[in-house]
């Protein structure tokens, strides 16, 4: 009886897991490191925090994204036609693997369909950071 119950539980958990984003690690990292500013739903905040959900910037500046996560951004940028100029602090303790996970989550959550980042691609981008 008992082992059987356990099995059912595991099955339920596994099924529940399927419904969520395939980028679970990235999602957890996003919630911890980014959601305070960009919000859980990626919508950003007014003219202070740019959105990530549906953001054209993610496609246009794909090669820059790893460096932005690691070293931040203090620039005047335009996202979906709106200008932003606040400072984003980077998270220099992130590893290339973690950056890959976060970027895969961000680029495929909230209706985004910007494809997958490979660890290789992220490593190459990181070499170009100024």
């Amino acid at each position, binding site marked *: 009886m008992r082992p059987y119950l356990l099995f059912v539980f595991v099955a339920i958990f596994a099924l529940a897991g399927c419904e969520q984003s395939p980028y679970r690690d990235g999602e957890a990292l996003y919630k911890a490191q980014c959601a*305070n*500013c960009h*919000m*859980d739903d990626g919508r950003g*905040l*007014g*003219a*202070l925090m740019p959105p990530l959900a549906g953001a054209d910037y993610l496609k246009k500046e794909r090669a820059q994204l790893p460096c932005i996560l690691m070293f931040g951004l203090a620039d005047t940028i335009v996202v979906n036609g709106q200008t932003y100029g606040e400072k984003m*602090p980077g998270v220099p303790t992130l590893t290339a693997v973690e950056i890959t996970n976060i970027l895969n989550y961000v680029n495929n959550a909230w209706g985004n369909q910007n494809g997958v980042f490979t660890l290789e691609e992220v490593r190459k981008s990181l070499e170009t950071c100024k």
Partner: protein
Amino acid sequence: MIKHIFWMFLLVAGLAACGGEEKRTLPILGERDVVNGDTIYPTVPDFAFINQDSQLVTNATFAGKIYVVDFFFIHCPTICPKVKANGVRIYEKYKNDPRVAILSHSIDVRNDTVAALKRHADKLGVGTPQWHMVTGEEDAIYGIADNYFSVATKNPEAPGGFDHSGRLILVDKNRHVRSFCDGTDAEETSRFMKDIDLLIEEQFGAKASK
């Protein structure tokens, strides 16, 4: 027997929940004193700050109003934007109701000048004077945080250089704190907004507009 006790508990809990749903009154928060047989409730003390439009903001600004309080700073790398996002929800809901105001205290008096607060308000889309973003004497701001059951201090170790709680606090027109919530949490804020409606009904005898 144990089973019986369990059911009793459920029943009592259920009844209590029903009673609360029907006609809930928000408690007056804080430690009360009894003086000569009278209960004295803690009240928010006098204050004087300057808002984003260079206007003096005092208790008189909120006379006859209920208001929501928080503490923040503009270059906050952690919880502030989430609290602000929930503050914007409250602002959007009550911006046409002159009985409700919002008072956000900057705890970074060095950087968050009146001009910086003005820019911040503009970028949040806050166009009416109902949401006061204030600065003032550092000690006065850190001191009054206590009265709102909030934390606001300098801490070089903390991200951004300050420690503060992301609470939203509800104050009634008699200067009593009546409710608060974790302003980083959208669901808690929804609950808190119900408390605002409840307080409007209690203090103004009419339902919240909209």
